[in-house]
């Protein structure tokens, strides 16, 4: 491209009176500028984000803890892996690491954009901290796990800047195809002069270069890297960091999604959905007792009981005077209240039955049936019992239910149409899991899942040639995350999980996996669509240029001038101008990506072929004609 522009310019200098040579060279240079512009615009967006991140990475002073317990001040850049550092309220965490001592609330807005502080504590799955984030309260001791310069924030900066961008397999394959097309066109143009000389017309270098530049796939060539950068950028905008472009592409190919039940398919907590009375009591009685026992219960399950009682039975919250609240403990496995001589308990079936029997009460015979029915339906039964003047007895059962998030069924239907199988992963027993799987509309489920089970499932799917995507946050997820083709680690997760995955979701929202798949597909579609468009464009350019070159010696060829272009010069110039302008016209599309709808491959192909294939054939005929009409108005050309 550069070479072509230089050549035409040189030839124009040799013949300075030739306006045509100058015009062609000018437009060829513009083509070069436009081609670079696309990439620059795409990169510019990333640079802005990188600058924000750099602000978070201001040089920090770390308080390194020596073995004897003495602290020393060192610059954050001198920390080594394994160093222990202390951070207290107001300190910026100097590097990536795990909390080994203490609990603190941390402001991670610098990387996640989320202003609400998060809790970081030693041990467990919430021990990872990221350099550049700020401790808001308390004191923690952190063990540094990454070298300065390779921290999460450093990687993020290089990712969004595109510095670390490597060409993905599909991109390389496409480049090879484009290169071979370029060689074909080079051959077609380079062998033309001897043919033309024989025909009795001499082709100037300017004309040959113009023809070549019009034919080689400059459009897609110019936009290819912009499309890649923009794809990464779309992920970053959704707060997902892909550690490699390969992973983004793999996301488009995924055919099996492993989704954790809790938080992804269902809301995080169970909710009360029904009060089932035993024989001899009424629903209202059960509701009343359940509500009383839960008034002081601040767990989400407790709140949901109060809400259900209000919505379904109109029971308002009451102020109880002199009530003694019995809190839930792991030993008693129930909670409740003693008030006005009445004792109310709710809790796990075994514990409540034992409580009733202790007090000489009897358990209604159908209580067992009710709990079984609820368990089979995938719910959790909570027994409600009362002890009052009539003695102790079981009133009924609260049905706690996993609530499937709204719209999930539609989402899974969409995925199925895209050819993606969804598998729900849960620690629940198979019975519960099956019920929820059916309600949510997933294709399959893995119940009582251990990390080993997950791993085995992934390997089984992969052995069948499928690509698997999953999310995870715990350390025990790390092997599975590493094995999956697309492993999305939650930012709240452990650093082991983050290391193992090839993407990190800063929002820690497992549902995002679906969006990631869509972005991956959109990236590939955009490349394919613009390649098709670019190749289809060439047909019209031939119809513009070939008659222009040869109609003088073979008048019959003027019949190919179906666009009716006004003169040979304006025809060639119009084709060159169109070639340059189309790049600019397609920049927004390449940055935004081709519109993606979750439909079957057939429908998608039909749609994209119509728009970009047939559109690519027709558009340049119209475009070149219009440019020619404009040019021919310039005096001395038409």
């Amino acid at each position, binding site marked *: 491209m550069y070479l072509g522009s230089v050549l035409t310019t040189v030839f124009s200098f040799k013949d300075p009176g030739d306006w045509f040579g100058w015009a062609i060279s000018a437009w060829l240079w513009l083509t070069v500028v436009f081609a670079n512009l696309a990439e620059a615009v795409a990169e510019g967006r990333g640079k802005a984000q990188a600058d924000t991140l750099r602000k978070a990475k201001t040089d920090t002073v770390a308080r390194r803890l020596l073995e004897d317990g003495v602290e020393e001040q060192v610059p954050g850049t001198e920390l080594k892996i394994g160093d222990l550092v202390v951070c207290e309220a107001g300190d910026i965490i100097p590097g990536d690491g795990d909390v080994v001592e203490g609990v603190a609330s941390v402001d991670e807005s610098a990387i996640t954009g989320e202003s609400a502080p998060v809790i970081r504590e030693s041990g467990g799955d919430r021990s990872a901290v990221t350099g550049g984030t700020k401790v808001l309260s308390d004191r923690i001791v952190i063990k540094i796990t990454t070298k300065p310069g390779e921290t999460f924030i450093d990687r993020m900066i290089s990712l969004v800047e595109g510095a670390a961008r490597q060409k993905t397999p599909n991109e390389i394959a496409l480049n*090879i195809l484009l290169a071979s097309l370029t060689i074909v*066109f080079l051959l077609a*143009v380079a*062998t033309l*002069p001897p043919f033309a000389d024989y025909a009795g017309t001499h082709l100037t270098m300017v004309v040959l270069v113009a023809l070549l530049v019009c034919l080689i796939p400059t459009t897609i060539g110019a936009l290819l890297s912009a499309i890649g950068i923009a794809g990464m950028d779309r992920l970053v905008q959704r707060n997902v960091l892909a550690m490699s472009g390969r992973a983004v592409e793999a996301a488009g190919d995924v055919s099996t999604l492993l989704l954790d039940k809790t938080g992804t398919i269902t809301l995080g907590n169970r909710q009360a959905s029904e009060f089932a009375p035993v024989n001899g009591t009424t629903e209202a009685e059960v509701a009343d007792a359940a509500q009383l026992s839960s008034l002081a219960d601040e767990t989400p399950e407790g709140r949901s009981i109060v809400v259900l009682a209000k919505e379904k039975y109109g029971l308002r919250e009451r102020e109880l005077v002199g009530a003694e609240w019995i809190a839930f403990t792991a030993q008693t496995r129930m909670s409740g209240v003693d008030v006005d001589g009445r004792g109310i308990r709710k809790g796990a079936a075994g514990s409540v039955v034992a409580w009733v029997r202790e007090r000489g009460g009897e358990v209604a015979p159908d209580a067992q049936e009710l709990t079984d029915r609820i368990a089979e339906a995938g719910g959790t039964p909570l027994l409600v019992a009362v002890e009052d003047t009539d003695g102790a007895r079981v009133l009924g059962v609260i049905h706690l239910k996993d609530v499937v998030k709204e719209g999930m069924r539609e989402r899974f239907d969409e995925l199925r149409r895209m*050819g993606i199988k969804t598998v729900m992963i849960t620690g629940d027993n198979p019975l519960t899991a099956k019920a929820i799987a059916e309600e949510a509309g997933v294709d399959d489920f893995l119940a009582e899942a251990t990390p080993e089970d997950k791993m085995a499932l992934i390997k089984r799917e992969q052995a069948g040639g499928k690509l698997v995507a999953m999310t995870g946050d715990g350390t025990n997820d790390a092997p599975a995350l590493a094995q999956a083709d697309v492993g999305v680690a939650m930012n709240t997760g452990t650093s082991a999980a983050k290391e193992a995955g090839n993407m990190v979701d800063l929002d820690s929202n497992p549902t995002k996996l679906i969006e990631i798949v869509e972005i991956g597909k959109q990236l*590939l579609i955009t490349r394919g669509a613009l390649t098709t468009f670019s190749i289809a464009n060439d*047909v019209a350019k031939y119809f513009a240029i070939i008659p222009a070159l040869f109609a003088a010696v073979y008048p019959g060829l003027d019949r190919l001038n179906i666009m009716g272009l006004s003169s040979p010069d304006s025809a060639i110039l119009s084709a060159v101008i169109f070639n340059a302008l189309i790049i600019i016209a397609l920049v927004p599309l390449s940055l935004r990506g081709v519109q993606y709808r979750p439909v079957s*491959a057939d429908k998608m192909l039909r749609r994209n072929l119509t728009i970009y294939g047939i559109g690519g054939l027709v558009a340049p005929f119209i475009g070149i004609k219009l440019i020619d009409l404009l040019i021919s108005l310039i005096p001395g050309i038409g």
Partner: protein
Amino acid sequence: MGPVLAGVLQLLALIGALALAYIPLGNHMAKVYSSDRHWRVEKWIYKGIGANPDTEMRWTAYLRGVLAFSAAGVLFLYLLQRIQGVLPGSLGFSAIDPDQAFNTAVSFVTNTNWQSYYGEQAMGHVVQTAGLAVQNFVSAAVGIAVAVALVRGFARSRTGELGNFWADMVRGVTRILLPLAFVAAVVLVACGAIQNFSGIHEVGQFMGGSQQWNGGAVASQEAIKEIGTNGGGYFNANSAHPLENPTPFTNLFEIFLLLVIPFALTRTFGIMVGSVKQGYAILATMGTIWLGFVALMMWTEFAHHGPAFQLAGGAYEGKEVRFGIGGSSIFAVSTTLTSTGAVDSFHSSFTGLGGGITMLGMMLGEIAPGGTGSGLYGMLIMAIIAVFIAGLMVGRTPEYLGKKIGTREIKLAACYILITPALVLILAAAAMALPTPGNSMTNSGAHGFSEILYAYTSAANNNGSAFAGLNADTQWFNTTLGIAMLLGRFLPMVFVLALAGSLGEQKPVPVTAGTLRTEKPLFTGLLVGAILIITGLTYFPALALGPLAEGLAS
């Protein structure tokens, strides 16, 4: 019955016959290449050539087999021609010159069968029958073997093994080509083609003077010439010669023969990859292009303007009145869309656009339906290119028949499609740029350029038909055309076999709703479009200066 109607009826009869043969022949060939039993005669052959037909070969070993066998073939045929002077049954012909012997040897081994000699004035019985006719069989069998190896690459997984070249090649001859050729030869003899070893006869002409008639094993060579998509005629006039192609029926029969294996191979392909629908999709692609070209050709030849054409009822120049415009048009399109290159009329005398259609047919890479074997693998390469672009448009890494089209696959396919355009354009440009080669042209202007463009297109694509008019028996043309044939045949085979190896090693990707369905009409349409656009873009400038300039002038 008008000539147009006659043409259409011939076309319908041809399609009917091809349809009848499609399933039995396709099934038979699939069985031939899947069987693990050897015939006794085959065992003798294996023993004779010292090959073990039961070892599985990786692509490199398979390729070594193809190249070694073909190199031996070229050498043998070259020597046979060089010592013709001392051979018995040579009808008194002397040894062939080195450059022409090289050209002819390469030509027959590469399944091109370009002839820069006059059969009846240069080649005796031994060279014709023991040399040329043998290559007519084995070069076709080599083509099918390579195609079968590629199909195995698609069908197999997690193995680099592609079958055994020797078994595939020998079976192609013994179980497919020989039986078919035998039946076909009997039919041709029954219809008047000759089959003897007699000498040269002087025959008096009606108008005074005399001419020579050769005897020869014509019918048998004619049969394999068409069945193996070879095209090298016993006589210089090729299938226009009454002793090769006596009647309108034999004309149609010969067209049937040259199309039947390439079309039926799509069935074989479908069976071997486990989905006959995939085979039908490829068949539909080939059929659409072939039928489209036939229709275009009939239109240009029947509807040409000018008083002479209108008086004759069409463009009759250079066509046999026996076959008519319809029969000649179907033959011309079929011979150039396969790698046959036999002619029953002079392509040079077709209308300008008609001549362009024959050239474009070859430029497509001879894939609709193409040569025996080479048509199928050429078409599958185009399918890979089309799948790659279309596959991206459905948002997945492109895959075809369960195999991913990744960097390595696209690299090999891209190399494949570069070869023939490079050979055709570079050599034609060299011929035009150098001072002497142009002297071989009979005509001036666009038609003269067409002669040269046609020659290189025909050689590089292993077609072998000639535009007539070009004196190709010069050192320059014998050598460069020989090189074009050699590279145009074996370089693509290298890439096809490498591709087969790389596909065979992959594990298959399961089909989901997100997979591009390559057995649907939509894909066939896409494939036809991709083939026409990619070829069109490559050759448009060259065609514009040759047949288009001529055809659009009037």
